[in-house]
């Protein structure tokens, strides 16, 4: 596995114009992804995870969002945000593929599995229909679909949720993308299927050597899968580090809160911990740290200014004033 950077996202800002004002859904997110790496992106609903994925694919404009100038998404030296739509369209599914959160609604109900898979393969390769069909068949076998020949001819409503997700994974990987964005791939599935799907993703990652951006709100999923973790809150990255760093010694009070709210088998607790309050309304202007209202470790400075990203010695970076003294570098975003 080479150490070179595959995808580099810098100062990504995406906003929506709403009736109540401008909503900065993604507000300056930066990260780098290496070949074969699995990056877990964690955060509660509405923190901008999905908008971030759609912005990387440059699809957010179709859904009313706008990527602010100054943002940068570079894939192998190519600036995606400057790419014309035609080129970007060729790249989607070929170099960056996506798996979405609800497998049951992500396949077109009026076309067979075969048609949807062949269509994708033909779009991005030189294969003819017959070759594409063989290719699709081999991928459906790889994702563990039994009776592939029969399943190929079926419609999405004839498949279970887990089967649908397998088809979607097969479809996404059939063109051997370099980056796979998995937007909550297991949220809609029951737990036994979840584990199978995650296993499958890990196995296929090794086979295709694709980097995976695993977007989820499930700490358990990232714990099992990710190499590195990025915690997002209100459109910003609040903490970033390796999996072990984030789980063993999380720095940001928000991350600590998230981890504390995971149910534990080894402790007897009557009530599950929950971070108080709700995600703030992003259309309103906020003074100071945006997490301040919900934070249990607030200091005086929190009310005055929004904290920048502090890089601490261990290599972790955190957006919190508590670590100002320990910072070796301040990356202002």
């Amino acid at each position, binding site marked *: 596995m080479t150490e070179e950077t595959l995808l580099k996202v810098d100062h990504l800002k995406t906003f929506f114009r709403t009736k109540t004002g401008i909503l900065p859904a993604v507000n300056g997110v930066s990260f780098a992804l290496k070949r074969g790496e699995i990056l877990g992106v964690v955060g509660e609903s509405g923190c901008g995870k999905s908008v971030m994925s759609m912005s990387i694919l440059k699809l957010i404009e*179709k859904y009313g969002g706008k990527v602010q100038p100054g943002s940068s998404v570079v894939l192998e030296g190519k600036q995606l945000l400057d790419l014309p739509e035609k080129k970007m369209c060729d790249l989607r*599914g070929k170099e960056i593929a996506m798996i*979405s959160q609800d497998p049951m609604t992500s396949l*077109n*109900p009026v076309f067979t599995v075969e048609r949807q898979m062949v269509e994708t393969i033909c779009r991005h390769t030189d294969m003819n229909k017959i070759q594409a069909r063989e290719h699709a068949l081999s991928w459906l076998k790889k994702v563990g679909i039994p009776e592939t020949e029969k399943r190929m001819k079926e419609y999405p409503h004839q498949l279970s949720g887990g089967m649908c997700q397998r088809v*979607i994974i097969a479809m996404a990987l059939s063109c051997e993308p370099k980056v796979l964005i998995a937007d909550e791939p297991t949220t809609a599935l029951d737990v036994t299927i979840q584990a199978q799907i995650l296993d499958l993703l890990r196995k296929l990652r090794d086979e295709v050597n694709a980097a995976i951006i695993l977007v989820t709100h499930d700490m358990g999923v990232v714990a099992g899968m990710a190499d590195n973790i990025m915690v997002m809150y209100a459109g910003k990255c609040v903490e970033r580090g390796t999996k072990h760093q984030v789980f063993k010694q999380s720095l940001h009070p928000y991350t600590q809160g998230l981890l504390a709210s995971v149910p534990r088998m080894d402790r007897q607790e009557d009530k599950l911990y929950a971070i108080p309050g709700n995600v703030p309304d992003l259309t309103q202007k906020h003074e100071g740290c945006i997490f301040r209202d919900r934070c249990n470790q607030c200091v005086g400075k929190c009310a005055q200014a929004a904290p920048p990203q502090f890089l601490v010695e261990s290599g972790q970076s955190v957006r919190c004033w508590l670590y100002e003294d320990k910072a070796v570098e301040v990356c202002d975003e």
Partner: protein
Amino acid sequence: MKKYILKRILIMIPVFLGMTALVFFLSNMTPGSPVDAMITPEMGVEDVEQLRHEMGLDQPIYVQYFKWLERLFQGNLGYSYRTSNPVIKDIGERIGPTLILTLTVLVVSILFGVALGVLAACKPYSIWDTLASGLSFIGSSMPGFFIALVLIYFFSVKLRWLPTGGMYTSVTSNSFSDLMRHMVLPTISMSLASSGNYIRQTRSAMLEVMGEEYVKMARAKGLRERVVLYVHALRNAMLPIVTCIGMSVPGLVGGSIIIEQIFGWPGMGTLMVLSVTYRDYPVIMGITMYITIAVLLTNLLMDLLYAVLDPRIRN
């Protein structure tokens, strides 16, 4: 599936019979009798009774109905009281013009309505959307006869580009281009009204489908926007559009009574009005039968079309 189709076809038989019975009794209950139109000053009361007896009108209605049914199964629809021609011949003469006009209207309004609806849904709040909403508003709020009169005033009376009515200029000049010229105005007046509906249906169906997850996935797969819209989205939006089209077909097969009257179009609508005025029962029954069959067949066709369009309905 085959069983389902067979069942649907078998069910059409009692519906058809029920329909004919209903219309037969209702039209016989209306005041007035076909004999009224045949009375001459020289005729006495006995002569009128004699005439009624000859036409079988003195028998109870249900006997008349069964006699009509009996003749129907022998392939005989009877003779028109008004023209004395076989009903088949009278209707046959009118079906052609009505079908030419209404099928043209159907094709034009579907193409126009669906295209504009898709365009409006793809670019919401754009100029196309405004145009589409405006046209569908005009189409569905203005009665066809008003649009027809406005069109006649401008294009026939003022500009003298197109004829005011009829199907051909004269019996001798019955060329295709002449027919086309006569069809422009009635087609526009009728299409505007029905495409208004299609525009609205298509727009809302497309907008709904375009918010679906599979459309997002189709885009994320790198499919071209054209393919996403016309293959993935439109195919799913077709269902409500087909329903809408199916519901407007019955109104069209009978011919538009008002539009045909305004443009003097020699179609079924005009014949229907004439037959009702003359209490021409055999012709009324003939027209009813034709419309009933057309509606039943359209419904069957729509159901089959649903199954073709949506695999979820198939089983």
